[in-house]
Every structure is written in structure tokens, then in C-alpha cells.
């Protein structure tokens, strides 16, 4: 089957699922109410899938490793720590916590800024060594995680339950204003990435070939890390920690498509991520009746796939 046909089938399948999600058991005379509940969730899922799959795909290219996600740089642990600190310091009823817009802006801007400072410092010190950055990211995430569990232990139990709700991956809490701002951010970032897609294709040959062919690898890496920081922060502050989906969709896209180019790879992984997300959400709402959370559905599917991938990689 040709790549073109595969992507068309995937897109059709995804549109069908999205339609099913929007119109499932919708009484016509209550349509406006149902749409006002469901459409924002669909938009949130579209934006998050785009942000997650693109950031993971690009991150794997610049680190030339297919089993990494940008989460290794410590985004979800930083998110958890920020939420923990906010609730710990302000209290569960504080206006920052109660206003989704304010907490979204605060969390995402702190995440983008701090990761920018970190990348610039580390990359300048190590002459663009990505592996050192990754190592540092891992150490920092462990540090953040221990820090947040410390605060979670001494926290008021009521506030802890508010926090727990925050740390779940969920489409349901996505707020319309937040979705709008995320959409604007992604639309601003996307043209730059599309303009530079051909550079990423060259980067697949390895750093030396890319330099030889005239790509400014150091500059591209740094700009890409910035874009990744923006995309991941937006997706995480919108839906909670969900980066595993990126690993799943990007690698599956690689298996499905024969074309190595980023244009088709990123498009396919975006469609796949959306497919998984909508499918997971449908399962969650219709079959499990919200008794489990979205991350569980995605992690069960994604986790088994990752194990398969590692085992298969070893066999080679």
C-alpha cells in the first residue's frame, strides 16, 4: 500500500472517530449544549496531538535517537512541582488555582522560560552536546519529583486531593480560553517549523553530513529546543502530563510510512496521536464511564507497544 493511501485512510478513520465522539447520543433539541461541551474537548485534543507529536518527532531527530521523548528534559516533573508548589503556597481556594487561564499562563511561561535558560547555559558550556543536556534533564526531573513528593507529604489532605486531580491527564478540564491561547501559540510556532522541515531531513544523515551540506546544526538545535519547550509546555499545561503519546505516535508513524521525510512523518504521527487520543477518550467516557483516567488508557496501549519496540530493536 502506498504512503499516500495509508495517510488518507488514517485521516478518514480519525475524522470518523472525531465525528463519533461529537455526535454520539446527541439529542438534536439539546445540540447546542452538547456541542459546547464536546467541541472544546475536540479542539484541545487536536492541539495537544499536534504539539506532542511534532515536539517528539523533532526531539528524536535532533538527539538522533528514536526512543526518547522531550519529557526526559523534565517537563512533566516540572509541571507537577509547579502545581504542587502553587497549591501548597496559595492554598486550594486561591484565585490563581481557581482561574484556569491564570494558572495556565503562569505554568506554561515558567516552563518555557526555565527550560530556555537551562538549554542556553548547558549547550553553551558543553559546545552543543545533546547527551549532556539529556543527562542533566534526567537528574533535574528526579530532583523535581522528590521535591514535589516532599511537599505532597506535608500538604493538607484536602489540598492534596485538588492537586491529584490536577496531575491527571484529562481532556475534561480544558478551558475554552486556555484552548484558544494554546491554539494561537501553536499557529505562531508552526510556520517556522514547516519552513525548516527540509533541514531536519538533512539532519537525519547525522551531524557531520548536515554541516557538510550547509545546515547550521548548532543554531537549528537551539531553535528546535525552544520550539519544543513551547509546544510541550502548552500541551502539558492544557491536558496534564501526556508525553508518552508522542513516543507512541511518532514511532508508529515511522513503522507505517516508508517515506523518511519529516513532512509525512510528522503529519502521520499527528493523525495517529489524535486517533489515539479520541479513541482513548471515547473508551473512557462510553465504556469505562470515567472510572479510570485517560493516561491509563494511553499508557496501556503505548506501554505494550514500547516494550514490543525495544524487544524488536534488540533482535536486530
Amino acid at each position: 500500500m502506498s504512503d499516500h493511501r495509508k495517510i488518507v485512510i488514517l485521516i478518514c478513520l480519525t475524522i470518523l472517530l472525531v465525528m463519533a465522539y461529537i455526535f454520539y447520543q446527541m439529542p438534536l433539541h439539546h445540540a447546542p449544549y452538547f456541542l459546547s461541551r464536546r467541541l472544546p474537548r475536540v479542539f484541545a485534543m487536536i492541539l495537544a496531538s499536534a504539539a506532542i507529536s511534532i515536539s517528539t518527532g523533532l526531539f528524536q531527530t535532533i538527539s538522533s535517537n528514536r526512543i526518547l521523548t522531550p519529557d526526559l528534559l523534565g517537563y512533566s516533573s516540572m509541571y507537577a512541582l509547579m502545581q504542587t508548589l502553587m497549591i501548597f503556597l496559595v492554598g486550594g481556594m486561591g484565585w490563581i488555582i481557581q482561574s484556569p487561564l491564570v494558572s495556565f499562563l503562569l505554568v506554561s511561561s515558567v516552563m518555557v522560560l526555565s527550560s530556555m535558560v537551562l538549554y542556553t547555559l548547558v549547550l553553551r558550556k558543553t559546545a552543543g552536546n545533546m547527551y549532556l543536556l539529556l543527562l542533566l534533564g534526567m537528574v533535574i526531573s528526579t530532583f523535581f519529583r522528590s521535591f514535589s513528593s516532599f511537599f505532597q507529604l506535608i500538604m493538607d489532605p484536602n489540598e492534596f486531593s485538588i492537586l491529584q486531580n490536577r496531575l491527571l491527564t484529562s481532556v475534561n478540564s480544558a478551558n475554552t480560553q486556555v484552548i484558544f491561547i494554546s491554539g494561537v501559540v501553536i499557529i505562531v510556532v508552526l510556520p517556522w517549523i514547516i519552513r525548516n522541515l527540509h533541514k531536519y531531513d538533512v539532519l537525519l544523515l547525522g551531524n557531520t553530513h548536515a554541516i557538510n551540506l550547509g545546515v547550521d546544526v548548532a543554531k537549528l538545535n537551539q531553535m528546535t529546543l525552544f520550539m519544543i519547550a513551547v509546544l510541550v509546555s502548552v500541551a502539558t499545561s492544557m491536558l496534564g502530563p501526556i508525553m508518552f503519546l508522542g513516543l507512541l505516535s511518532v514511532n508508529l508513524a515511522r513503522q507505517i510510512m516508508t517515506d523518511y521525510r519529516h513532512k509525512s512523518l510528522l503529519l502521520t504521527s499527528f493523525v495517529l496521536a489524535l486517533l489515539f487520543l479520541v479513541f482513548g477518550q471515547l473508551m473512557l467516557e462510553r465504556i469505562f464511564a470515567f472510572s479510570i483516567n485517560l493516561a491509563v488508557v494511553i499508557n496501556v496501549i503505548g506501554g505494550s507497544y514500547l516494550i514490543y519496540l525495544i524487544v524488536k530493536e534488540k533482535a536486530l
Partner: protein
Amino acid sequence: MIETHKIQKSYGNVSVLKNVSLSIKPGKLTMIIGPNGAGKSTYLNIMARMLQADHGEIIIDDKPLKKYKKLELAKKMAVLKQSNQLQLRLTVEELVAFGRYPHSQGRLNEKDDTYIEEALRFTSLTSMRHKYLHQLSGGQQQRAYIAMVLAQDTDIILLDEPLASLDLKHSLDVMRLLKRLTVEQKKTIVIVVHDVNMAGLFADDIIAMKEGQCIYQGTVDDVFTTPVLEAIYDIPFNVQCIQDKKFCIAY
């Protein structure tokens, strides 16, 4: 025309290159020889902008290397390093097409196609163009990478040990191909090699390096004398002339 002025490079406290000032002759096949750790690859990589020199300047066609824009330089000078491990599933033709990137940035036009065609023909890979790289032998892969560099259509080509891991037949194939490039297309080619006799057979100009310095530069006739070779490698040599070609025997 490449000129290097007082290139210095050290890794930590170890000085790898000490004041290397050389000029590479245009349109010739220059081969760099010398024992391990002499700084040959480091020198080539600095010329190829893969490494930064601590001191010194590289001038290409009367313009310092640093003043070139990245894409402009990629149209002037091509580099091929010794190990080319690729995770990607690419066909030969797709790899060669990457050579056109500096000219077309991923959008190939008819002119690019003619260059790709020519590069494939020159390296006799036309019949294998649709094969995947990992299906090819080491020698064929090396030729495919050379084809990519040819498609790049640069005046200068730098190769870091292109013969490493190739057997005698494939080494000769690659060397003949490079020699033809200098003769037919007037390319300036610089190669780092370990096999001194390869240099004796093919080089127009030989640069001998030892302990981070250039200790000798000259033609095969200049370098292929017992005292010079013994000074380079610190082992006894016996230079023989067989059918007008000079060979050295070290054992």
C-alpha cells in the same frame, strides 16, 4: 585553493596541531600521510569546519573560512568522514539527492536531476540506484557517499580515510575514481590515508605529518626516499621502483 595559517589545536593539555601552515594545490590530488596520532584527521576536520581550531586561519579562494555563509561554503567544499553509519532506510538515489541540498534546499529541479544522474554514472551506481543502502557492500556504500559528495558539485573535496575498512580492490576503485575527478573535472581533493603506497600510486602532492606538524610536503619523487620515509615513521624502509612507480617496503 586552500591555505592554512598557523593552525593550532589542543585537546586538554595535549597539543595535537602545532602551527600547521600549508597551502593545498588547486586541481590536484593531495594525500596526507603520517603515523597514528600525527594530527592528520584533526587537520582535515579543521579545514572542513567540523572542528574549531584554537588559533590560526583557513583561507579558501582568498576568503577566510569564517566569512563564508554555511550554504555558500557547502557549494564550495564537500567533506566525507570515515564512518558513515546510518539508521535511516534510504535508497542510493535518495542519498545522492541529499548532495543537492545546498543548491536546492530539498526542492529538486531538472538541473539537480542531471547532477544526480551524472554522479551515479561516474560512480557506476546507476543500476543500483533503487537499492537500499544497508543492502549494499561496504565498498558500494562508500561509493554511494562519494556520489553524494559529487552531486554537491564543489571544487574542493576533503575525505577522511575513505579507504578504511575497504579491501584492496575497492580501495583501488575508489582511488581511481578520485584520480579521475582531479584529471577530468579539475577538482581539488585532499585525502587522509594510512597506506603509504596508495599515496605513492595516486598522489600529485603528499603532505607528511608527524607529532602535530607538517614535516614534509612534496611530490611522490620527493617523499619516496628512504631518509624521508624513515623520518616520518621511525622504522626502516626500502624504496623500490617497479614499472616506473615507486613503492616502499617496511618489512
